[in-house]
């Protein structure tokens, strides 16, 4: 099992057959991932950085992505503590780290800063390391 964040899901959706890259097909994410991915696409379209039709196609690809929504009863409390330990004022990124920690699996992200901050809290890798 792997926890994937919004950067990875978006990049995989934007690539041709991007999810074929994962040898471990058991991909999970906290519910936040879909909200974040949608928000990113909507904002890119509103800013004119991504044509609206492509943004909508990407949103559909995210909705169809082979990623299972995964919650945990301790996710809120754990992500709060992890945000403190990562030195983050907001808890968004900490939710992914918390879920990986609670499930005892790796987190896959493209965000180098999150990988660096979380290295003592969970096993965090980039998709190129898989």
């Amino acid at each position, binding site marked *: 099992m792997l926890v994937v964040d919004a950067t990875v899901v978006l990049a995989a959706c934007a690539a041709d057959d991007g999810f074929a890259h994962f040898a471990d097909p058991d991909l999970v994410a906290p519910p936040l991932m879909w909200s974040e991915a949608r*928000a990113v696409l909507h904002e890119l379209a509103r800013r004119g950085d991504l044509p609206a039709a492509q943004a909508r196609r*990407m949103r559909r690809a995210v909705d169809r992505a082979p990623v299972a929504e995964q919650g945990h009863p301790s996710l809120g409390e754990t992500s709060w503590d992890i945000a403190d330990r990562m*030195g*983050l004022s907001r808890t968004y990124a900490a939710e992914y780290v918390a879920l990986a920690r609670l499930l005892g699996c790796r987190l896959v992200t*493209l965000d180098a800063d999150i990988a*660096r901050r979380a290295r003592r809290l969970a096993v965090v890798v980039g*998709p190129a390391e898989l």
Partner: protein
Amino acid sequence: MITVSEAAALAGVGEETVRRWVRAGRLESRRDGPRLLLHREEVEQLAAPASLPLPRDWRTSWLGTAPDWVAALRRSRRGIR
């Protein structure tokens, strides 16, 4: 919160570069009298390489040039339009 001079030292850039990042909306700031104060974690994020490498098979996209997903997500989380 840290000052422009502390941010410049942290990021290894000049103070004018930090002020340019603020003007471009890449850093949130607030004024404390004459001083401009910045969030340390945002400065750290700007100073560090943003994105880990993409796998080779993800480097071509049906979007043509794909956006920088890490930058876009960070901007979205900060709520900057």
